[in-house]
């Protein structure tokens, strides 16, 4: 076991674990950030998606030691306590969620997409989100929520 300093949601946190422990389990079991979900452990389902320096990564397949020196953003850090990120608001407006288990991975993937592509095409939405699985079939509402979040952002950007 060794001690690692992590930058998670803008806070400096210390995790004591084996260096090859997947970041997923450090977040969930050591740091109490259970919003990041376990789904498959092989990077196939995207439920464990977090943003590493703004880019979506599968935290089940990222070793703790490799997260050191990078900014980690989990679903808990997306908006200040009591607030909502525009993508989260769009998710509620479109009533996307069913069981909800995959949604943090979906939302973080959408946030990363909109950061690099504020006006995504349907094709770009599909490409960005095709690695995050949902068994409840919320996909059409996810598409609608991403489009809504993009439109909301454009409206706000206008003077």
């Amino acid at each position: 076991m060794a001690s690692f300093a992590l930058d998670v949601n803008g806070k400096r946190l210390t995790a004591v674990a084996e260096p090859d422990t997947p970041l997923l389990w450090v977040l969930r079991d050591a740091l109490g950030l259970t919003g990041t979900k376990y789904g498959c452990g092989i990077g196939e389902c995207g439920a464990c998606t977090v943003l590493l320096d703004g880019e979506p990564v599968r935290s089940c397949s990222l070793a703790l030691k490799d997260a050191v020196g990078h900014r980690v953003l989990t679903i808990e850090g997306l908006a200040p306590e009591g607030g909502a990120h525009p993508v989260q608001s769009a998710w509620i407006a479109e009533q996307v969620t069913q069981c909800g288990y995959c949604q943090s991975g979906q939302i973080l993937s959408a946030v990363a997409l909109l950061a690099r592509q504020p006006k995504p095409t349907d094709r770009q939405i599909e490409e960005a989100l095709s690695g995050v699985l949902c068994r409840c079939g919320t996909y059409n509402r996810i598409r609608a929520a991403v489009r809504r979040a993009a439109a909301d952002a454009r409206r706000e950007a206008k003077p």
Partner: protein
Amino acid sequence: MSAPAKISRRAFLRISGGASAALVLGVHLPGRARAAPGATFAPNAWLAIDESGTVTVWVIRSEMGQGVLTSLPMIVAEQLEADFSRVRVEQAVTDPKYGRMSTGGSTSIRRSWEPLQKAGAAAREMLVAAAAARWGVEPGACVAQGGAVHEAQGGRRLGYGELAAAAARLPVPADPRLKPPAEFRIVGRSVPRVDAADKGNGKARFGIDVRLPGMLYATVARCPVRGGRVKEFRAEAALRVPGVRSVVPVPSGVAVVADSTWAAIRGREALQATYDPGPNGTLDDAAIDALLADPRASLTAVRSEGDFARAYAGAARKVEATYQFPFLAHATMEPMNCTARVGAGGAELWAPTQSPTWAQSEVAKALGLPEDRVSVHTTLLGGGFGRRAMPDVPVEAAQVARAAGAPVQVVWTREDDIAHDYFRPASRNVLAAGLDADGRLVAWRHTVRAPSIMAQVFGKAEGQPDVVGGAADVPYRAGAVLVDCYTPAIGVTIGWWRSVYSSQNACAEECFLDEVAALAGQDPFRFRRALLAGAPRLRAVLELAASRAGWGNPLPRGWGRGIACHASFGSFAAEVAEISVEEDRVRVRRVVAAVDCGRVVNPAILEAQVESAVAYGLAAALRGRIDIRGGAAVQRNLDEYRPLRIDEMPRVEVHWPESSESPSGIGEPGLPPLAPAVLNALAAATGRRVRTLPLEKALSKGP
């Protein structure tokens, strides 16, 4: 300890004062109710109003995405005349006062509609009576609305919070007047889900998110073959993995208990274990196919009208076909897990379960405890689909916790989740139909060859065999009908999968009906409609789906359109699928669904449930299969058992008729018509009739 699944909307006030100051009303079927505390019977719903006017509604059904935490309180609030923004929702913990808690068979709204309406209405009448007494007027001079009682003539008003203590002292009306639907303000509206915010910000607590003081994590090494066992194990290497605390044998296998999930996973990898697969160790798909196809099987007739043999023999034209369906895994996004704490006082479980009461009784049995010393907190479920009806995981967690001497969360890896699933049974459906010289259907036979879930789970099956679900009640008018079955025992663990046997039987029936229509030279939609004279609600959704889909309108080259309909769980559903085929790649472009589930409580949730059934059914139809080799599942993870992806999700349009019928199921009924609509569309597009699922396997074999 409060239940982790507790949903508290930020806007809600906390309950204060306790039972003495609050109106606590227990309601129990049928229709008898009296004020609690002191209620000794088993009510099936509870509501409370505190001095601040906050209404708490306890939900005894499990929230697995189907929206019960929203839709069930809506029913209470409607009759209560509550302000829905001041309703607080709580997940009930097992208690005899709630009766049997289980969620399945698309029954949540069906079974709650009447008792929850009565619960709300009785409370409303008591609040009105309390206000009338306070004002010295007749109850008829008072009106309840928006969480307050108003004086009809005059401006006096008392909030429910101000009336709660007085109302609690009044007798509970046995037969309260229900608000008529014309006055509904909440039911019938797309009220937003109460759990939407927390499911988007990471606060929602699923079973796997439960954290107890001093809790350890465990994985279990199990033999992947039904009836097999761990023969021997050596714990040394597992115990050397950092974070592993202990290795303990339990009835289901060998548990590796650790400080973290990852240590438990690594510890199990290091564990040296050998398995005795038992009598099913050589079972494979070929043996299962041969078992189901056994020509010497003795068939049990479950429905026989007219003389099928004679009608079929005398038919002018005949067709016969055999359809085959694979085992399927549930693959809920949240893998199986359960957290247990076992002490001298009893056992407490936090379980993402569809069957809290069954889990409670099975845990009690397994630990040798009286049932009242076991309590089950139902967490949010990351999907259920029937898998979480089974009590196996709670029982295992309780056994591991007791053996470890600490609170333990047992986590199943995805590989465990698939290997030890209760699979949708494989089946073989043999159909035959005869037409007379005028093209009329004069003979219909459907033989279902499939293992019985009820027989395997409960050791015996009573009444009509479960395997003919969705086949015995074939709605089409035929001169003679014979539905029979063969239900061999099977060495693969099977269970309920969204829509149960309707998932196979409706597919076979609806595809075969297209084959019969083709034999008659008729359009599949019109052929069905003509045979559905005795099933008006099914016929109506068939017509609705066809008209909204533009049945008969031209499609691009390479596209096809298919239709199917099916009644299940008290509801009626029809779907039209439009597909395109390019080089053996089938893409489902659009699904138009029409469903009649009676009165609609929450239209947005209804739409979401049908979208969900389409996605779940489509993944299964396209590529869902669990193969068996050496008695175990071949597919191991989500790269081999692949759910639908966003780029494969068709456009889905959902329509429903206005209805004044009591609400019926909607979690499952949208699924059965999907696969046959797609297969019928494929036949329309290519002339190819696929009779063995999944589609991609059938297509990869070539024509």
